[in-house]
Structures are given as structure tokens and as C-alpha cells.
């Protein structure tokens, strides 16, 4: 959908566009002055500015303001019959086109259509009923949309290179496909995708119900999965913190899949890197990492360095001194590497404050409220 800003002092001109060409895929917005539009340009990125005036002086004034403000969208002049000198001046000032009124209604439609053809990308002509970014509509928003429509259809989700699909029948989720995962697992994994694209299509195809539970239950499980993910992240080291495997870990004691991940941690590997790379059941992996940390098979940088130094020191000593040192050590705890830094849980109060800060539109001016209460009491 293309946005066009119409700059004209005469509302009738703006009405001409909305009455006659409201059916075209163009959003017309009316501005009386050019100096009003800067913030709107940033927000809406119009494809053109239409400068509409019968007076060449007004057009020239607007164009000079356009230049001063270094506005980006191309502009098109709509005006009456001008002589060649005036038209040439407009061409030299950079106008994309000059449309000379009067123009046949239908011809103007063709001209406007030619303007927007340049901006119509193939993706806008596709057959999907619902397309976009997961930044704009979340996974749960989309499920809710299909459910409320009561229709059948397909919802394809894409998160980087990962692609999944959810099938609906009469608004109910009947199947989900993602890699080799079972439908419910696939739903949980896809519910974690916060970025990426979606394509939805409503249809009347018959589909087999492969998820026996209702939508509410599925959504609840997805939410629980997301909650568990947050809890696990809270217990695990910070995302950007590098984690290392215990230097003397016996890799052979682990299965091939676990071994693969433990090898990644050998030279330091962060959770952020893991989350960017991993495309499966993330919570089961995070639970595993937490267990490995508890077992001290995974260490933070400090603990890892300590263990390495310890091992090197041990290697330098003779076997005997090793035994002696073990026997006569002050305390076994002192030789333990420092504990891995776990994040502490936020108190309820701290959570509320944090949430308040994220929602600046909430009224939280306590002194003003107290003042208001005092005034009310005084009046009584």
C-alpha cells in the first residue's frame, strides 16, 4: 500500500483525489503546508508528495521549502496550464512530473496507476490473505485471528532459515509441521519465534485432526513453554557470557549429540550463540545445560581459568607432592573453582518497577496524585 501526501491549500483538490481514486491502492493524506509533514514522512515513508496548486508562486515556494528541509520523497506538481518558461523552471527544480489540469477522470486514474506501478513489488501481488512480519503480529495473535475467523487455512511461519506450518480447520488447530517434531512440539517451538515472516491463507480444504486437544489447551502449553524458557534463562548465565567445558571432562561418557554440544563449549560458547544456532526444542537443551552446570561440567570463564591453572600446577608437581598436597590441603573447598555466577530472581516490587518503566504511558506521578488527594480532602 502506497502512501501519498497531498499538499494543497484547497480541500476541494484533496477531495477530488479521495472521491475519484479512493479505490486505488494509495493512501492519500492531506497537508495544507509543507512544514507540517516532516515527522509524518519519517513515520510513513510516502512514495510521493503531490504539490497541488494553480499558482506557480506557491509551487515554487513549496519546492524551495522542500530543498531547505532536504526532504526525500519525490514530488509531482499538479497545476493549471503553465507556459513553457514556468514548466521548465519546475522541471529544472527536480519535479518528477507535471500534471496539467484539467485531466479526464479516467485518464488521471491511469496516470496515478502508472505512478504507483513503480512501487509495486511482486510480493504485493501474491495470493496470501495475511502476510507480514512476526514483529507486527505475534504467533499468538495469528492463532487468535484464525480461531476467531472460524475458517480453515494454512499459516506458514519463517524464522531465518527455519520454516514451519500450522493447519486449521474451522478455526481449530489440527496440525503443525516443523522438521521431524510431533505437532504439539512443533507448536511450542514455533511459538518462540519472535522475528521472521508469516503467510496465511484461508481455504475450505478438508484436513485430518492430528492434535486432539483444543486451541485453548495448545495456547496454554505454548505459554507454559515460553514461561519455562524465561525461567531457564534466568537461572543460566547471561546470554553473552562465554561458558566452557570442564577441562578434564570425559567426553566418551556422553552420547554423540551431547558430545557435539560439549565440544562447542570447549573454547567458549555463549547462550546467545546457542540460541541463534539451535532450531529444535530449546527448553530441553537449556535444561540439559543447567544440569551440566550444576554438575560442574560446564564452567564460567573464571572457574574455567582456575581449573586450567590448577591442572597445570598439578602437572608441574611430582606424583608425591600431588599426594601430599591432597592429603594436607587446608580445606578441600579452597581448591574448588569459584561458583558460576547465577542471576538472582527479581523481587515482586522490582518486577513491578521494571514493568512500569517499560510502559511510560501509565500514570505514575505519585507526588501529583498525593497533591490531588490533598486538594480533594481540603475541599471536603
Amino acid at each position, binding site marked *: *500500500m502506497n*502512501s501519498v501526501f497531498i499538499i494543497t491549500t484547497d*480541500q476541494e483538490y*484533496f*477531495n477530488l483525489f*479521495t*472521491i475519484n481514486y*479512493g*479505490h486505488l*491502492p*494509495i*493512501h*492519500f*493524506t*492531506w497537508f495544507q503546508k509543507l512544514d507540517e509533514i516532516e*515527522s*509524518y514522512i*519519517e*513515520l*510513513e515513508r510516502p512514495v510521493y508528495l503531490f504539490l497541488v496548486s494553480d499558482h506557480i508562486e506557491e509551487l515554487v515556494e513549496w519546492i524551495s521549502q522542500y530543498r531547505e528541509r532536504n526532504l526525500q520523497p*519525490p514530488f509531482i506538481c499538479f497545476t493549471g496550464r503553465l507556459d513553457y518558461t514556468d*514548466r521548465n523552471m519546475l*522541471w529544472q527544480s527536480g519535479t*518528477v*512530473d*507535471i500534471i496539467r489540469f484539467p485531466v*479526464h*477522470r*479516467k*485518464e488521471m486514474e*491511469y*496516470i496515478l496507476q*502508472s505512478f504507483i*506501478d*513503480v512501487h509495486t*513489488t*511482486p*510480493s504485493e501481488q501474491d495470493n496470501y*490473505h*495475511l*502476510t*507480514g*512480519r512476526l*514483529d*507486527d*503480529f*505475534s504467533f499468538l*495473535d495469528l492463532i*487468535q*485471528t484464525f480461531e*476467531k*475467523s472460524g*475458517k480453515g487455512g494454512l499459516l506458514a511461519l519463517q524464522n531465518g532459515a527455519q520454516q514451519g506450518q500450522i493447519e486449521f480447520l474451522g478455526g481449530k488447530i489440527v496440525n503443525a509441521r516443523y522438521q521431524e517434531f510431533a505437532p504439539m512440539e512443533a507448536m511450542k517451538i514455533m511459538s518462540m519465534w519472535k522475528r521472521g*515472516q*508469516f503467510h*496465511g491463507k*484461508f481455504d475450505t480444504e478438508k484436513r485430518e485432526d492430528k492434535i486432539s486437544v483444543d486451541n485453548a489447551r495448545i495456547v496454554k502449553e505454548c505459554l507454559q513453554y515460553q514461561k519455562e524458557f524465561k525461567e531457564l534463562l534466568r537461572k543460566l548465565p547471561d546470554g553473552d557470557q562465554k561458558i566452557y567445558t570442564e577441562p578434564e571432562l570425559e567426553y566418551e561418557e556422553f552420547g554423540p549429540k551431547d558430545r557435539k554440544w560439549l565440544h562447542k563449549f570447549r573454547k567458549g560458547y555463549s547462550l546467545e550463540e546457542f540460541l541463534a544456532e539451535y532450531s529444535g526444542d530449546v527448553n530441553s537443551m537449556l535444561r540439559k545445560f543447567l544440569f551440566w552446570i550444576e554438575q560442574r561440567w560446564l564452567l564460567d570463564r573464571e572457574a574455567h581459568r582456575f581449573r586450567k591453572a590448577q591442572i597445570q600446577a598439578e602437572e608441574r608437581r611430582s606424583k608425591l607432592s600431588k599426594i601430599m598436597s591432597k592429603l594436607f590441603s587446608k580445606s578441600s573447598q579452597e581448591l574448588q573453582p569459584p561458583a558460576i555466577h547465577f542471576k538472582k530472581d527479581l523481587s515482586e516490587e522490582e518486577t513491578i518497577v521494571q514493568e512500569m518503566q517499560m*510502559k*511510560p*504511558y501509565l500514570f505514575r506521578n505519585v507526588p501529583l496524585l498525593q497533591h490531588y488527594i490533598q486538594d480533594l480532602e481540603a475541599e471536603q
Partner: protein
Amino acid sequence: MSSKNIYILDDTDSNIEIFDTYLLSDGIDRTVFKSVDEVLSNRDADDHLILLINYLTLLKASREEVIRLFHKLKNDYLIVYQVPSNANRRLAFYDLGSWRVFDEQYSLEEIYYSQRWFFKNLMQETISEPIYSKGRLEDINLKALIRLLGKRGDSGVLKLTNRYNSGKIYFRQGFIDDAQVGPHRGLTAVLHMLLWTRGTFTFTITRQHLNQNQVHLSNPGILLIGKQVADRFEQYLSMLGDIRSVLRIKNAGDLKQANLDIREDFIDYLTRPHPVGEILDNPYYPDYLTVEKLSLLKDKDFLYISEPIDNIIRQKKEESFYQNILPSIQLNFSKKETKQLREQLNLDQEKSAKIFLLSPDEKSEVQLIMSLSPREANLPSASDIEVAEIQADDKLTMYLIGMKMSQVAIETIENMSKSITAFIFLIDSRQTALFEYSNYVINQLLKLKEVPSVVAVTHTENDQELAQVEDQFYPVRTLKWLRFKPGSEEQIRNLLLNIELIEEPEPEEAEQEEEQ
């Protein structure tokens, strides 16, 4: 041919020299063709090309070649210049698929200036990454969208569009900060758009937001008021009858004396016929107030309501039941002919067909319809539409609906009914001055509805005269042309049997691809 090049079809060297001056200074390559045939034999690539076409060079090719050129290059950017200064002639080229048309008043220099920016943009690679989310209001209505986006607490712009209008709502951290639709802003604009049931939306979250504070209500508050407004709107709308009806003001002189609380510009707007759906999106009142004003006009008898075509036929039939004035004729086609009729008109088991009869001059179509009347009766002209009934056999009734070719007819046909069976275009060969306009209307209608059609040319002595008339038309698709002499049943029968949808030949590119 490649898309990184400009192509020019022009056999005048001086024109090419002028274009070259500008193209070279902008670093754009060009290829010149001297004839239509040369373009046709060289068009082989799939990508969209930009072709500048001199009208005077086109004239040197045959009519068939010109139509073939436009048919073959229908997906390309065709810019026709040096067309005679006549709006209908320009529109004929637009209808054929031109991207832009310039008449002889435009110098080549200005044509180049006017296209330079587009050349550069069209020759760039397009980015197909979506930058926003979009959907249909039929699937998620605005109420649901407001709830959804409000819950998210994001800032962004929600753009909405329906068949006749477009608008937008600005969200600030989940709350509606401002809205605009046509000239309406703030809460008025939101309430207006809440009544849209069909259309599309796009939404994108933005980092920054405006602080216009045009809407002072919370989202639930807006939805609550929206519900009240919607209830009232439905009440008034039901009083206006069918949403497909076309309305216009009547007794405008008396209306000015009546001192009704209605804006003058809204009344001026209603002097032209518009369907109810379109009037709801007029630029003077929001939709929920528009229905109130229309009901007031209807109550005071200032509104002419033209019902959808199905309703008109029903009404005319009811009138004729009492007055016996609906022109009708029993043609009694043979079984073979009825079968042919059904096949050509794409009628499966239907019991009735609606055939539109259009002529450019004053009431030719009415005369034809009147000629079907068994008795001399003056048809009460309650509308601009005349209807005649033709009984093909006991299972098929055809309604011949006569209208004058006009912009109003195009709009009426566009809005009135989806169930159009066919078109008959009635052209008087003597009225050459009306050819350009007729060509425009025929093309507009053929683009609206791809239904079986026939062009009946009156006052021609022989096939050569018919061909001469045909040569002056540039229809967007192949049509059957027929000599026609009104006044006899046999001619009507022949006319009806000649209505057909002529299959367009497959584009040659497809054949070539298959060969490859």
C-alpha cells in the same frame, strides 16, 4: 531484449536524435525499431521492457498488427506519444494497455523529463522483502485489530483501505493517538473506519511515534462508542434499502428552499449518481452521519433511488402485470438454436439472461426496445434504463436492458449487478463523431465484465462499409461485428445468435517457450 535498456519505436530520425541527447546524458542505452513488425519479431525476453512508441509510426502498421503489438506487450511499460489531442483517443491507448500516453501538445523534451525518474526506477532491481504486515478486514476486523495492537503496547501505523477510500490509525504504545480518513481526523475517523466490513489493512511497528493527542479515549472506550454508532448506522442503512442501489438528488431547486441541515457540497456531490457503498465514503460526512443525512433526504423525497438491476426487472414486471406495457416478444427459437444460444451465452441451467444493449446516440436503444412492443405504448421513463422481455422458449427468458453509452452507464453497470450475461453495442455508421467515445465506453465495459458481446452496426449497405466502421475502433479484445437493420424479428433473432465470446489467441511467447 533486456530490461536494462530503453526501446523506441519511431521511424523519424530527428525524434531519435532528440531522445538520444537526453538518454546519453543520463547514461541510458537505447535500441530503435522502425516498424511494429520489427518489435514483434524481436520481443522474446520475459522481463518487463520500456518501449516508447510514436503514434505516427503506429499508423503505418495495419490495425491487426497494432492490436497484436499491444496484446503481446501487455505486461510491458508502453509509452505512446504524439497522439492527436483528444481525450478519447488517449484513453483508447490506455485501454489497450499503455502505461502513459502523451498527446501532440507534449514536446519530446518534456516527455523525456516526465519519464526520466521512472526510467531510472524501473531499471533498478526491486526489493521484495515485505516491510509491513497485511491482511483483509473480512478476516480480522478493525475492532479485533485495535484490541490486538492495544494489547501489544507497540507504536505503529495501521493503514486501512476499502473499495472507495483509505485511512490510517496511529498507535502510540498501544493507544490510539490519531487517525485520518479522507478529511476526517481523530475519533471521527476511527468511528468511520470501524464500520468498514471489507477491505485490507497493513500494519507496521515503528520506533518513533507522533504525539498528536487527537484521540483522548482508551481503546475499550472507543470500541464501546463504536458499538453504539454501529447500531444506529445499521438502523439508518436498512431504511435506505439495498446497498447496491444508486442514489442521486432530485428536485435540487426545491431542496435549496427546504433548509435542511445538510452541507451544500454534499448535495452537489449527490447530483451525480453514486452507489450507496461509495456515498458512505464521501469526503463531507463520516459514514455514520452520511446515512442519517441520506435518510433525511429520502424522507423529504429529495432522493432518486435506482435499485440494482434485478430489482428493476422485478419492478418493471410488476408494473407491466397491471398495465401490460413491458415490451415483449416471443421469438420461439428452435431446439438447436436454443442450445446454440445457451452455449454462446454461457448459460447452463439458468432460466433468465440479462443482456445489456448500449448505444452512444440519443435513445437508439430505446427505439429498438420499443420496436419489440406489440402495441404502441409510451414507456413511463422512471429511470434511464429500459427493459424488454424476449421469450426464447418456455425455459429461457432474456431481458434486454437498454442504456445510453455514458460514464453513468459504466458506473451503473459496474455497481448494479454481477450477473450480466452479455453486451450488445449498437453503433450508427453515420455518426462517426461518436466513434471515439463509443470505443472508450466499449473498452471500459469489456474490461469490467468479460462476457459474450456483439457490435451491431446500423445503416450500412454492405460488408465493406461495416469493415470501414470496424477499422476505426480499437477494442481491448476481439469482437464480433455485424450489420444490423432494426425493425424485424428476424434481425433480432440473428443479433442474439451472434453474441459470443471470442477466444483470444494464446500469446506467442508461451508457444516459443514450449518449443525451447
